[in-house]
């Protein structure tokens, strides 16, 4: 039999819990913990959780964005950014993580999944250095 991947486990957990509420939900949760214990999969729990988070995001059409900037963003700018990102990724919900990074010198950097849009001065200088070489 093929090895069960963490992705498969995360998918099954999501399906099991999807439409359940109340006592049925608690029972399902208990069963999941039992299953992980029986299969000795607790060491894999962080990875499974990460995958589960991804599956839930996909289902809810939400995206996680990490924004790095030199200074904290103003509310006005944040609002505009959310609008722009919703349009670009056609997402219903944008989950924001802000990160202060002074090494960027100036400008912004977005990270959405494995996609990066780097509008920082640091990146522009790096590109210029490559161009001049």
């Amino acid at each position, binding site marked *: 039999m093929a090895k069960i991947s963490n992705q498969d486990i995360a998918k099954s957990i999501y399906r099991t819990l999807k439409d359940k509420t109340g006592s049925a939900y608690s029972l399902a949760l208990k069963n999941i913990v039992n299953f992980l214990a029986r299969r000795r999969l607790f060491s894999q729990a962080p990875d499974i959780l990460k995958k589960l988070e991804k599956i839930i995001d996909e289902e809810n059409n939400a995206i996680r964005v990490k924004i790095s900037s030199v200074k904290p963003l103003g509310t006005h700018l944040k609002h505009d950014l959310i609008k722009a990102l919703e349009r670009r990724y056609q997402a219903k919900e944008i989950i924001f993580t802000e990160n202060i990074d002074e090494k960027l010198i100036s400008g912004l950097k977005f990270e959405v999944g*494995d996609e*990066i849009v780097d509008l920082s001065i640091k990146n522009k200088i790096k*590109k210029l250095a490559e161009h*001049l070489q």
Partner: protein
Amino acid sequence: MASHIVENLKREIENFKADIKAEKVGKVVEVFDGIAKVSGLSEVKSQEMLKFEGGEAGVAFNLEEDTVGVIVLDDFSKINEGDTVTATGKILEVPVGSTLLGRAVNALGVAIDGASPIKTDMAYPIEKIAPGVITRLSVSEPVATGIKVIDATIPIGRGQRELIIGDRQTGKTAIAVDTILNQKGQDMICVYVSISQKDSKLRKIQARLEAGGAMEYTVIVSAGASEPAPLSYLVPYTGVAIAEYFMDQGKDVLIIYDDLSKHAIAYREISLLLRRPPGREAYPGDVFYLHSRLLERACRRSKDYGGGSITALPIIETQAGDISAYIPTNVISITDGQIFLETDLFYKGIRPAVNVGLSVSRVGGAAQIKAMKKVAGTLKLDLAQYRELEAFTQFGSDLDDATKKQLERGKRAVEVLKQTQYSPVSLENQVVVLYALTQGYMDDVAIEKIKEFEEKFAEYADRNAKKFLTQIRENKMWEESGEAELKKAIQDFKTSWPAQKK
């Protein structure tokens, strides 16, 4: 001068437009032994070139569910966990051009000979599908190796793949180097691919080629023993990409892979580190394809498709003469024949230590010139009979005259086929000597005098059998007039040769 530079730089900076777009990047999850596992990079292609944060290059090798297995082509110790990796969108390619001639480069096409950086206008992908059936021609032009035993009994044609196989220290590289040296003036470009060889050995070969004036038409591509396994894995493909460039210019190319056993070992290392399942002798399942796709790129192309050819001489090192091990059998079945070298023969003083019985050339016969075919036909027979009879003589029984004669002829044939290193013989001279042998003119020369006889006679024939030599050079076959002249020259020489007189 300084203001000029500043002005230029200013203009460059002013005109520079940073082209910033969304990039797919990955993050290094782990890095070990020249391998990096990278998460992200969702749109990466197999064999795509990647750049690490510190500028190191890598190639996407294993595309898995959430990670990409990358082989690192630079110093992997500078890569840290969490470093970003960007895809370049390009399949790995190497710079190619005629400026490579006379140079030594590494697996990525960067000069390693200490001379100036190599400037080229073009780059070729290192992985390419071999030319199809329609574009190919059958082998019909010879590659003159200058080694008598090969040119006579195991002829190689342009576009052929002939394996050189044998234990360590049996003269495999010597045959390859001699063949390169003999290509002077034969309109052939040579590529010598050195895979995991000692740098001292490579330096020696390079010095030898320089001394013989062979570097003018030769490119050395090398991944040394101290370099990481990924480079040893890539270097034959780099070599053949360079060879393909010259073939695309309509040239005939000779490529030597020294050696493919080490290539298989490097690939085994990468595969095991990437956790691909091991098979026989722990080699991965696709080790046959590793060599077949490489050697399939050797070909002779028809004029309509640009002409040119790539002749490949792969080398395989066996352990204790075992040609039935995994890699030797694979490569034997891929190539169009093999030159089998034996330790026993080597120590008996038969050098090149070619075992004529086990060596074959499956397509080279068609490429042999008519004159050589004529003399070599009887030579092969002489040698085969000699080998058979030699076993009998061990019993020490009385032999009849005919058998004795055959034995004597065989001994002389073996003697004539001996040749020292770095002394290639031209095709015409080979025909002259073998003619004298197979026609029985050497039967009355003492065995220990054969080498001397051969040498002196070749010189004599150069002066006194000009017609014969010209006929072979021009028409690839002698005519009656030439043959009569040669016969007379042999007889005259024999009467005048002092060693013969006594």
